[in-house]
């Protein structure tokens, strides 16, 4: 561990903190304000899109309408993306002349991008044509992020609106939220970021791959493409699907420590800002900061552990004649170093981004446990764009219920009572993720067609399995690597894992929003359970840890935990 390393981490945290309020205010203006920013430039675009799609922006949806629109939209997205991949050989913009993508892989990829997961069982540059990358995949990078924002807004509206006894129990208009996310947030920001990235050395071209002669005199094909534009939305929308197989470790995706820092901030920017937006909507910004604080504490703890672990010498290399003081550099880019890699791993897994700039597979057992646990805590450490906020708010509801009874009242959140229906939905939400991960992991671990894909034996192999299904169910998309995921078994179970982990969880979230929105609001008093202070933040963290960690601890103790203790005894797998 070095001062420089801690400085990088500290600086990153400060920049995120500084961005949260102004960006949060901007988002509030976009989605809840009377007048949206840049009305001359973006207003006509917004209105044109409504006219084109026949959207009546003033008509709001109730929760069922919202869920229906969201499901139809995402379902169509899966179908179209599947079709594009299967037909890419006959479609234009295929300079490399790549053939059609295999059905199971195409299904996995379509599900992956529609769910904001961006799990990639393929190498982009050798599998997907430019059209597939842009129309099939980059399209989802925008829309799946926008869907996440929409669901988060719907839940926030459900919790914070006071329609009164006769008022409309609506949660907003799905199409409006979708269009505004893209027009006012994702698109302009991506354009700006893409230009900045180009300036920092990221390529942006539609030309064919270049064949170059290396210093050794060998011929090498250098893959190129519209990288910068995809890179921007990859981070901003917490998508994580790289243009190249090596993702953000590739020098064209992430050439310098500066681009690395920029990408990290981009990943956290919207999820962090949404907490402030939420506080604004709740008419008490401290509500938003309490949520932010819980996320921040979990993040800092994670990055601290990961950095500490990675700064240790790699036990597998013990005895080799090399400088062990640099820490565990296996699988890391030297231009980012241990701190930059540990930070990236924590950020990308805390959010459901899943971009990687180092191989998580090569992390020390504890260093690799942090990304895995981050995902298993339910992607609440800032989380995916929108998804982080709604996942965290479900945990908030759970916390309010468990601890709220202790003050001697029916638990209430923002003045609205948490009753049996909300508990049922919240438990449903909480159940789905561990169910998917545990059942699929157990299946893959004992089935020959599952275990045969493992790159390593023993506990490390188990970590690979757990990571794969956690990452997909959590819509993260980062891979532990080491696992050959492009088999029919892994493609199909993975796709189902991702779809269930996204949509089976969103529906209860919207249902909670629907049942909360019309509830009577009890004004807060000294007798009400405070949800905007430090005590609540601490409680929230404990509930997240207990619900998340206790569920996975038995399996984890045979994976990374065992590997860690075994490594201490000099046994490596």
């Amino acid at each position, binding site marked *: 561990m070095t001062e420089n390393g801690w400085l990088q981490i500290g600086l990153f945290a400060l920049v995120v903190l500084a961005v949260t309020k102004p960006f949060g205010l901007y988002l509030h203006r976009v989605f809840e304000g009377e007048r949206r920013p840049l009305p001359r430039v973006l207003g006509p675009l917004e209105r044109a899109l409504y006219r084109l799609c026949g959207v009546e922006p003033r008509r709001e949806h109730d929760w069922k309408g919202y869920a229906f629109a969201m499901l139809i939209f995402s379902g169509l997205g899966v179908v179209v993306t599947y079709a594009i991949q299967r037909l890419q050989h006959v479609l234009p913009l295929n300079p490399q002349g790549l053939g059609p993508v295999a059905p199971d892989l195409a299904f996995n990829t379509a599900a992956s991008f529609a769910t904001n997961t961006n799990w990639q069982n393929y190498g982009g540059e050798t599998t997907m044509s430019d059209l597939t990358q842009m129309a099939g995949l980059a399209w989802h990078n925008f829309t799946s992020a926008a869907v996440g924002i929409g669901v988060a807004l719907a839940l926030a509206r459900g919790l914070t609106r006071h329609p009164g*006894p006769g008022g409309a129990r609506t949660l907003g208009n799905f199409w409006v939220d979708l269009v505004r996310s893209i027009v006012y947030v994702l698109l302009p920001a991506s354009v700006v970021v893409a230009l900045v990235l180009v300036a920092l050395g990221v390529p942006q071209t539609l030309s064919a791959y270049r064949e170059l002669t290396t210093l050794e005199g060998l011929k090498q094909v250098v893959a190129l493409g519209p990288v910068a534009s995809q890179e921007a939305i990859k981070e901003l929308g917490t998508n994580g699907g790289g243009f190249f197989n090596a993702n953000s470790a590739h020098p064209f995706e992430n050439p310098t420590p500066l681009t690395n820092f920029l990408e990290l901030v981009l990943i956290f920017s919207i999820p962090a800002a949404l907490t402030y937006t939420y506080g604004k909507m709740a008419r008490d910004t401290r509500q938003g900061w309490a949520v932010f604080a819980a996320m921040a504490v979990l993040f800092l703890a994670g990055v601290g552990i990961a950095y500490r672990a990675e700064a240790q010498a790699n036990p597998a290399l013990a005895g080799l004649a090399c400088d062990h003081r640099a820490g565990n550099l296996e699988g890391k880019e030297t231009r980012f170093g241990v701190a930059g890699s540990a930070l990236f791993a924590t950020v990308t897994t805390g959010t459901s981004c899943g971009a990687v700039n180092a191989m998580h597979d090569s992390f020390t057992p504890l260093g690799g446990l942090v990304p895995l646990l981050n995902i298993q805590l339910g992607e609440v450490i800032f989380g995916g764009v929108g998804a982080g906020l709604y996942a965290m708010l479900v945990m908030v509801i*759970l916390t309010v*219920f*468990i*601890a*709220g*009874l*202790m*003050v*001697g*009242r*029916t638990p209430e959140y923002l*003045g609205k009572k948490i*009753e*049996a229906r*909300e*508990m*049922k939905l919240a*438990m449903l939400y*909480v*159940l789905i993720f*561990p*169910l998917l991960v*545990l059942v699929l992991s*157990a*299946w893959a*671990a004992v089935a020959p067609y599952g*275990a045969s894909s493992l790159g390593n034996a023993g*506990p490390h*192999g*188990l970590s690979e399995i757990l990571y794969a299904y956690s990452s997909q169910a959590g819509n993260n998309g980062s891979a532990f690597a080491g696992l050959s995921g492009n088999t029919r078994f892994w493609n199909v179970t993975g796709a189902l894992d991702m779809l269930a982990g996204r949509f089976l969880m969103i529906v209860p979230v919207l249902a909670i929003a629907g049942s909360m929105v019309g509830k009577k*609001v*009890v*004004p807060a*008093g*000294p*007798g*009400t*359970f*405070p949800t905007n*202070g430090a*005590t609540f933040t601490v409680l929230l963290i*404990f509930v997240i840890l*207990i*619900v998340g960690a*206790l*569920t*996975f*601890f*038995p*399996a984890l*103790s*045979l994976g990374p*935990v*065992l590997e860690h*203790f*075994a490594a*201490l*005894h000099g*046994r490596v797998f």
Partner: protein
Amino acid sequence: MASASSKTKQLSLFDPAILRPALLESLRKLDPRRVARNPVMFVVEVGSVLTTLLWLRDRLLRPPGAAPGWFTLSVSVWLWFTVVFANFAEAVAEGRGKAQAQALRRMRREVTARRRVDGGEERVPASALRKGDTVVVEAGEVIPGDGEIVEGIASVDESAITGESAPVIRESGGDRSAVTGGTRVLSDRIVVRIGVEPGESFLDRMIALVEGAARQKTPNEIALHILLVGLTVIFLFACVTLVPVARYASIDLSATAVVALLVCLIPTTIGGLLSAIGIAGMDRLLRKNVLAMSGRAVEAAGDVDTLLLDKTGTITLGNRMATELIPSPGVAVEDLADAAQLASLADETPEGRSIVVLAKQQYGLRGREVREAEHHFIPFTAQTRMSGVDMGPRRIRKGAVDAVARHVAALGGALPPELQAAAERIGDSGGTPLAVSDGARVLGLVHLKDVVKGGIAERFERFRAMGIRTVMITGDNPRTAAAIAREAGVDDFLAEATPEAKMRLIKDEQAKGKLVAMTGDGTNDAPALAQADVGVAMNTGTQAAKEAGNMVDLDSNPTKLLEVVEVGKQLLMTRGTLTTFSIANDVAKYFAILPALFVAVYPELAPLDVMHLASPFSAILSAVIFNAIIIVLLIPLALKGVRYRPLGAAAVLRRSLLLYGVGGVVAPFAGIKLIDLALAATRLVHA
């Protein structure tokens, strides 16, 4: 007649009379159909059956590689205990209610009613009475059914229901006309119109309630149950999937160990005690002589935001009292006290008596011999609005200020202007001035005022800390009401209250999202009682009031509302704290069981065994035993409720978190280690 409730009231929770039947009952409750109502405990019972079968199988077939028989047997025995302990908690909670119901049932013996038919009377069994029948009840007879007196007045012994042995007066018309079946008329004769169909009487309902037959899960209980079932399902999957995951790591987990892990992780502590907590909450109210018609009402009491309190009887003592003497200019206060006392000697009203008491306490004037011959007492009349005494030449009068002023004016005297001003001041402060005159001279004023009950202001202060607003309801004018409200420390008041105004107030509060509690006894209170979220009807009140409310206070003490709220809060707090404790416990159980499961194959995992338990078997067994015993240890807490403190929510939360959250994490580490040591010391465990 020894009353049912007073007898059972003294039964302590852990009286053998309750414990012995409870033990039997807890075995009877092992019936899977009954356990299935509680999914958490049902999982434990299935686990118990499974481990018992495993033990039998190992015993009979002796398969190779099976866990040692003593281990499987011990785990299975302790799993059975876990279910039995939970059943026991419930049985103890029900015990007192059962005992009371039995006593009540004895009272509901068949009586013969004298039903009136077309001018005559016929004798029919009470069970044949229908709603609308009229019956005659005379001294010494038992009232055959609930109803309203339509004719007559009688003293009634209601001790059977209230436990209060002093008879009460019941009369037709007004708010004291309700009578309850099973109570006994002590004097006079009344005609009662029966108000309920057979089987729906107050006594029947009371029996059903105290027995818990009518007990349905309350809203919060249902929500909590969902949480517990959800956690159980999650842990079920975590444990079941651990078997293939362990097989991947070349570990063959024994089914006994997996069941033990599962049972330790699912929230058995709160799951086992949940229904006992609910029953005990109702029972705590019952011991305060409040009969809640549903658990929902008790829970709602904890959520109450606004209390509507009748001034008279709740905030003030029922009557006005003399508190101060104000002499006229030039009159010694002792002379005024003397005259006031003389004028009040024959006055038997509470006000009159309070003047005598004031004179005695403040001016040392003792009650004097009063001889009828020398004294001629003038009684109070509505016309003169004065009373007094003529002693020889002295004509002492006491009464309303204007009446006395007119009286002295007729004798040639006048009311000094200073007194007029003082009288107005008294009126402004919410009191009533009485003037005292001797002949044509006005001696001074007596200040009568509503006396606020001792300690009531502090009590309201506690409610304020908890975020509950108190509103005083009174028929007084706003000026008087404001003065009393200030003195009593209520947050708000409703003066010149009419039933409509009261109803409007409740609806306004509810529209703001608040829950309202109130007490009432009259028929015109009924709509408000029904509208309020918690309506406590006085047992002395009318049938209509009792039916409209969702609680009945058998003692008819309006102050009881405050205790009802406290019981409601305590009930919710107890559930919350035990849930937190139960979930926090899991951390230690992991550290006990997980290393024990894996350490044989992977000795590297030994550092996870932070408690350094004697052996893997001992570790698992200790965790299971702790898990069972903690239920028994927490039964008193579940039944008595956590200690209630009148603090703000933030402070209560911090305290509870420290005690039950942090305590819940730490306690099992110590507990499991102790059990492990004990098992090793007694050599119950073989390595």
